[in-house]
């Protein structure tokens, strides 16, 4: 898909209503995961020759407007020998959002990135970064498909 420099207003990801498991505290700073998601999304949109820009406060949004928000951030269950192959110890970064233009939204996306560590490698920050990167790729794919059919 080639959108030839079409303008795109990409809002920073919103945490409104995001679900965090009450019994499992997030063991790391999520700033790196957020950066991974936003960076991945920007890169994917640029690869399709869209021109993602920040919203300018006080001025109307230009071009396609994308408003992502976090659905779920799940650190998963700590990996132990007995639950190595369980699905429940995956680190999950799930997002959704609306795609629209100045007249209003015309589509939405919903993407989930999940990564599973191993006994040897279970740094939560790295796992979150990888999960967010996967979610960004899936989200970008859905956004581009929706914009292409517009």
């Amino acid at each position: 898909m080639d959108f030839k420099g079409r303008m795109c207003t990409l809002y920073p990801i919103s945490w409104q209503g995001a679900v965090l498991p009450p019994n499992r505290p997030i063991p790391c700073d999520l700033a790196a995961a957020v950066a991974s998601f936003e960076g991945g999304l920007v890169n994917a949109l640029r690869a399709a020759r869209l021109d993602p820009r920040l919203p300018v406060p006080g001025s109307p949004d230009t071009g396609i407007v994308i408003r992502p928000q976090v659905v779920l951030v799940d650190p998963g269950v700590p990996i132990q020998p007995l639950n190595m192959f369980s699905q429940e110890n995956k680190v999950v970064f799930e997002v959704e959002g609306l795609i629209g233009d100045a007249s209003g939204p015309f589509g939405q996306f919903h993407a989930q990135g999940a990564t599973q560590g191993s006994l040897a490698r279970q740094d939560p920050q790295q796992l979150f970064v990888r999960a967010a990167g996967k979610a960004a790729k899936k989200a970008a794919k859905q956004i581009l498909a929706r914009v292409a059919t517009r």
Partner: protein
Amino acid sequence: MNPMPPSNSNQSGLGQYAPPAPPQQFAQPVPWAASGPGNGSSQMRSLFQWQAYVRIRLFDGLPVERVLAELAAAGVDFQTSRNCVAETRRIMIRRLVSYFVWGPIMILIGALAVVGAMANMQQTGHQNYLIMMGALVPFGGLYMYQGLLMLSRVPRLPKL
């Protein structure tokens, strides 16, 4: 509920991102939102966020009645809550498939290997190491047992 993580973008690493401006010409991203419980504070949640909330609570082993009560207290209507539980149920059942496929396959391979190895023992002078594949039988059994335990945790769908 844990405190919210950094809400934006100054810490996002992309540097140029400013805090989000209030939407002016663009609708709120959550048209079907309801006020949620969180840690007692009222917050807007979308349908996907409620689904994720129900999924997390049910996977943590909470009874479905308690989760439904939490959603009702947050002002989510019963039909939406029921749909969220149904979605979680579908995910749980989909995850169970691998346990009930790979468990019996491991048991079968292990049992065949043991039978084949023992049938050949006389000719090989009891040197048939294929018998070690028998370890697959208890492993497959445990795998299936874990699947059964998970099956017992699949919530019943609340009646309409």
